[in-house]
């Protein structure tokens, strides 16, 4: 067993303060613990628990427990929860030693694998038996990890729910919400770890910091006590002007709270506001007011305020609540973000036609969240990497065409760079890429795509694509229509621009080649009217709506013809 005591964590023992212990189980749990160890923000005993000795070796936590030394011989559980469980049972004495004497035990784990799923329930059991309050933070595997892991995760979750006093669940699929689509995958995982670490920190802060309005363990259990429920956690921190509102906004934006919609359903909500010495009553009042808007009147609000000089001038708002399983199913808690789904009726068909980029909701509520979110995750990947045509059918009208075109065009290197800016609104993509109006997107993307067609060649590219409506409005369509109707239609649609008075166009002066000219002109399709050079560019429109790319003489002649 590896003994590391680099940081001898002094346990701040104040008489009457709560002793907390954080146990990270398995690989994922270890990652979270590492983050907490690095951040050094939590005053608690940190214990890393694993079967794999190598992972333990890399861990930065001061205390480590290796599970099932003889059984596993320092090798991981290989994705088998039974092995994980066995190992934990084997080492139950050491585990007990590690967690004993604490008032609260947090357990962090990633479900789906061997050690995490298998050992965590055992550890929770042991912790409970020492009389501590057991707080669980678990992550659910990505949907692409496969059904088996998901099943293992679910089973483990079930067991944990029986043993834990509170459970905060984080779905890996929703990692996509934490970062921009183009950010590296490492950042996504880091953010997830941070989120979990934040929640732990928040809870332990709530319970340990001397507060003006104290929240105790009893309040915590009241807020989080629903049988088999899931925890909702929101955390927001802000500083500077308007920090109160900012902090609340951010707290509500937490993926685990889903824009605060889920708060509509809760019975008890725990709000903890922490600030530096500069926290004012006015701010607290404003914060509570804003929260009040998002929470129904019947909710029981448990309110705590703490002043922690270490926070400086930032304000932290922590929201803790829980939803019972029954409520969860109706709310489809882990479903895609708020703006996509109507809150009332979650029947399958309606979701499919309501919002374009919402993936088809699956059948049962339980697997639904995972799949929905996964599809969404995939969708964003697809949007930013043009080579994935699988989900095209769900997308709104303009997009499939654009995507198809891009896919079929053998996109050159720059394409992804352009794609990212033009990503539809599903993700906030600030990367200096505003969301231009969708029409603009289309046009700009076309420019890039078709730029590789050498100029002199006329357009083969757009066979079946509906042409840009703007041009169609003004230019006669095809040979098939008799010239007069076309012209009349065109002219009727265009108010004559201020330019066109007969004064500068002497009526007698019709160009010599005019007759043939005119016929040829009408034989052209709309695209050709604009000239080859401007085929792929955004049309220039005059105030009256004319397409100025069409030669002036041509437009004029049409107007005069009538």
């Amino acid at each position, binding site marked *: 067993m590896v003994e590391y005591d680099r940081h001898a964590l002094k346990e701040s023992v104040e008489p009457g303060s709560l002793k907390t212990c954080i146990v990270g189980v398995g690989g994922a749990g270890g990652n979270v613990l590492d983050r907490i160890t690095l951040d050094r923000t939590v005053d608690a005993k940190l214990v890393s628990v694993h079967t794999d000795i190598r992972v333990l070796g890399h861990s930065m936590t001061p205390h480590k427990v290796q599970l099932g030394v003889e059984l596993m011989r320092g090798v991981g559980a290989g994705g088998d929860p039974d092995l994980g469980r066995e190992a934990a049972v084997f080492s139950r004495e050491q585990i007990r030693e590690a967690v004993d004497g604490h008032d609260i035990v947090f357990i962090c784990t990633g479900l789906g694998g061997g050690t995490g799923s298998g050992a965590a329930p055992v550890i929770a059991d042991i912790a409970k038996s020492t009389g501590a309050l057991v707080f669980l933070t678990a992550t659910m595997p990505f949907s692409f990890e496969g059904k088996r892991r998901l099943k293992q995760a679910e089973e483990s979750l079930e067991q944990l729910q029986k043993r834990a006093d509170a459970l905060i669940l984080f779905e890996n699929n929703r990692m996509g919400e934490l970062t921009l689509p183009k950010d590296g995958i490492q950042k996504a995982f880091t953010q997830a770890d941070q989120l979990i670490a934040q929640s732990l920190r928040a809870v332990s802060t709530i319970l340990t910091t001397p507060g003006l309005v104290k929240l105790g363990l009893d309040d915590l259990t009241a807020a989080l006590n629903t049988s088999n429920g899931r925890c909702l956690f929101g955390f927001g921190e802000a500083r500077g002007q308007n920090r109160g509102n900012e902090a609340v906004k951010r707290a509500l934006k937490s993926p685990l709270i889903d824009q605060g919609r889920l708060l509509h359903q809760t019975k008890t909500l725990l709000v903890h506001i922490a600030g530096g010495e500069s926290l004012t009553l006015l701010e607290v009042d404003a914060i509570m007011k804003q929260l009040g808007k998002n929470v129904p009147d019947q909710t029981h609000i448990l309110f705590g305020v703490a002043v922690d000089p270490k926070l400086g001038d930032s304000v932290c708002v922590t929201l803790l609540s829980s939803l019972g399983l029954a409520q969860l199913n109706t709310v489809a808690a882990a479903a895609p973000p708020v703006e996509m789904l109507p809150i009332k009726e979650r029947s399958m068909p309606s979701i499919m036609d309501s919002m374009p980029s919402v993936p088809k909701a699956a059948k049962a509520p339980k697997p639904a969240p995972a799949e929905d979110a996964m599809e969404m995750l995939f969708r964003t990947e697809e949007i930013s990497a043009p080579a994935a045509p699988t989900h095209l059918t769900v997308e709104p009208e303009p997009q499939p065409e654009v995507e198809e075109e891009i896919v079929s065009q053998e996109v050159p290197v720059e394409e992804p760079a352009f794609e990212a800016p033009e990503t539809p609104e599903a993700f906030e993509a600030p990367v*200096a890429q505003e969301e231009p109006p969708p029409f603009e997107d289309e046009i700009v993307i076309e420019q890039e795509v078709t730029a590789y067609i050498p100029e002199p060649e006329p357009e083969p590219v757009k066979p079946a694509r509906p042409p840009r409506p703007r041009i169609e409005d003004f230019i006669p369509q095809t040979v098939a229509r008799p010239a007069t109707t076309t012209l009349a239609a065109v002219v009727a649609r265009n108010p004559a621009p201020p*330019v066109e008075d007969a004064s500068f166009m002497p009526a007698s002066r019709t160009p010599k080649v005019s007759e043939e000219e005119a016929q040829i002109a009408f034989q052209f399709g709309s695209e050709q009217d604009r*000239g080859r050079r401007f085929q792929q560019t955004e049309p220039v429109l005059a105030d009256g709506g004319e397409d100025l790319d069409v030669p002036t003489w041509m437009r004029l002649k049409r107007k005069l013809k009538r």
Partner: protein
Amino acid sequence: MAKSTIYAGLEIGTSKICVVVGEAKRDGTIKILGVGTAPSRGVRKGEIVDFQKVQTVLNDALVRAEEPSDVMIRTVFLGVTGGHIKSLNSRGAWRLPEDQAEITEDDVEEAKEIARNVEIPQDHVFLHSITRQYIVDGMEGVRQPIGREGRVLEADYHIIHGVRGRIQNAVKCVREVPLEVEDVVFTGIAAAQVVLNREAKAQGALMIDIGGGTADYVLYEDGMIAASGCVPLGGDHITQDIAMAVQIPDRRAEELKVTEGSCLFEDLTPDDIVRVEDDNGFMIAEVERSFLNEVIYLRTREIMEQVKTRCEGHIGHLAAGIYLTGGTSLLKGIDVVAEDVFERKVTRAGSAPVSGVTATFEKPQFSAPIGLIRYAQILDQEKPFMSPLRRLGRKMADLLSVMP
């Protein structure tokens, strides 16, 4: 600080890509060290549509500029244009605190902030914030408010903005060369610095830079910039019109426009015929000169009218009249058309005389690139200790509209 600094200006235009290397001396003169141009490909109406092509040509132009000037170009002032560029005038008023009688620099900053805090479309980014004037207690035309006594200080600004994505595309393209972009400049503003002199600005003048893809215009009234923008119509459109009217290939149409083209189509006999030949000398088309010129006239007039429409409301006295520059301004008879449309005197201008190895750069095609050098010089004079690298999107430094 060095007595003279070397700047490089880059204009990615529709008909040419041009790199200018210039040396700006402390006394305000500019010496052109080298100019590299190459016929542009992959640019339409002032905007890049094909990165690769543009980069190839850009590299060409760079080499051609670096050789004679013997300078390694690392950072450039990039000129951008395009129909998306819009402008507006904005005023911000700042009331001085009660106990304060004199206007201080801080007050000026406050007023500036308020003036600049104007609504632009979400996808737009600021290109320029140009001081027009300060107004102290209702008195207009104040250039230097600091130290004056007053209660209310207003800052009057001319704001130019454009679509963020397009501007960034241009920057991206340049960065990949690799070149650093020191600043992004609307080419109209750049050209105006060398085409319009102090007097013209004071009297009121409208400069129209008609290039291959766009017509940039900048309007000065009472010594202050009043309107600016870009009409995405240019020489290319004229060429296209000719090509489609006479049914000849684009290249021929361009040649025709340059050699035979004119905006004057009256007083021509019907048997004045222009022959168009292909490479082998075979005739491919015949056209009456009057017809040809009329086609050109129509389009040219349209461009002028478009500029006029957009300047509506700002055209005041304009005593100095219209200044035409840019390649298309070489078209015969274009001054007549302009005079007709604007009803003011028209001057065809290149950039103000600059010294240099090649004195040919009074050609109107080079107004904008040379203007970039001048712009760089002015910027440096305003804020001599500014760091050379600035990121796109930040509001630019003030550019006083009347040059010192």
